[in-house]
């Protein structure tokens, strides 16, 4: 990062952008700028199917306030969202719908498996439950817990933001 802090050398006869913008701009790489912008403007799609939804609501509302991290805006159309939060148990019957929702999202997109059921099936080792949503769609962040505390959710969100910042961005 380099600041335009060199003093003017032309005696002030012409407009000098270096002097005028002294201390006000900085340079970075486009990739990092894009990552910075993306990680703080996450539009979420909450795919809430079970009791983990209570913890998701708790995290999203004012007490824990997910808005502080730039991820406040739930969109109820997958076409307008960046992050798919799979919150709760995914049954075999709803699995094709989850795949549909994921396919409808526009890239770049990320997926968070929220809680034990979405991550690995949780306690339901049976005929009706998908043993982890990574059998259907790719997952970026797994949040452990049954259900996870809001602190764990925020930790997962921060890890997702770190991941977004540190991966090479898909440029339009």
């Amino acid at each position, binding site marked *: 990062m380099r600041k335009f802090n060199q003093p003017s050398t032309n005696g002030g006869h012409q407009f000098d952008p270096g002097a005028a913008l002294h201390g006000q701009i900085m340079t970075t790489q486009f990739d990092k700028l894009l990552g910075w912008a993306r990680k703080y403007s996450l539009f979420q799609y909450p795919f809430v199917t079970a009791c983990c939804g209570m913890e998701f609501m708790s995290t999203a509302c004012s007490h824990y306030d997910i808005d502080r991290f730039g991820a406040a805006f739930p969109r109820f159309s997958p076409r307008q969202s960046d992050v798919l939060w799979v919150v709760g148990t995914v049954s*075999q*019957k709803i*699995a*094709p719908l989850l*795949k549909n929702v994921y396919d409808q999202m526009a890239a770049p997109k990320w997926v968070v498996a929220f809680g034990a059921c979405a991550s690995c099936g949780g306690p339901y*080792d*049976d005929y009706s439950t998908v043993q982890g949503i990574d059998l259907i769609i790719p997952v970026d962040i797994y949040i452990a817990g049954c259900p996870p505390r809001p602190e764990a959710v925020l930790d997962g969100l921060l890890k997702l933001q770190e991941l977004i910042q540190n991966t090479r961005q898909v440029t339009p």
Partner: protein
Amino acid sequence: MSDQKFPEHLAIEKKFPGSVFDWHAQHGDRTLIIDAARSFDILKFLHDDHGYNVLVDLTGVDYLPRKPRFEIVYHLMNLSTKARLRVKIQSDELHPEVASVTPLFPIANWLEREVWDMMGVKFSGHPDLKRLLLYEGFEGHPLRKDYPLQHRQPRIGPKDQ
């Protein structure tokens, strides 16, 4: 434990002789185990003549080593007198088929579909006996005790693709 036969029991025994196989009234849970072949007529009798106008619940139980294997449980309630009555019928493994009570209690439509879905007990005379909770293409009935716990069925894909 009460050993007094209750009025509904006596009325059924009078109208359908030999149809009550067993009974008890422990702690007020009045229970009759009746003949599966005459179950519809007996339930119709309770519904029409004794005012049991609510089917609170209808479930199935699988007692696997025992014969007959399945038991269908009807929880009835009389809204006027607040009386409750539990009626059970036992069903054989080879012919797991009992008469549908949907004509008497419309709620039985979905309850019987659920029992068919989970237990594989057929209800003859049901208007539309198909799976209620599981999807089309699922094989077997998962709440049967001999359904393998960790058996996985092929995952279904999106319908339109």
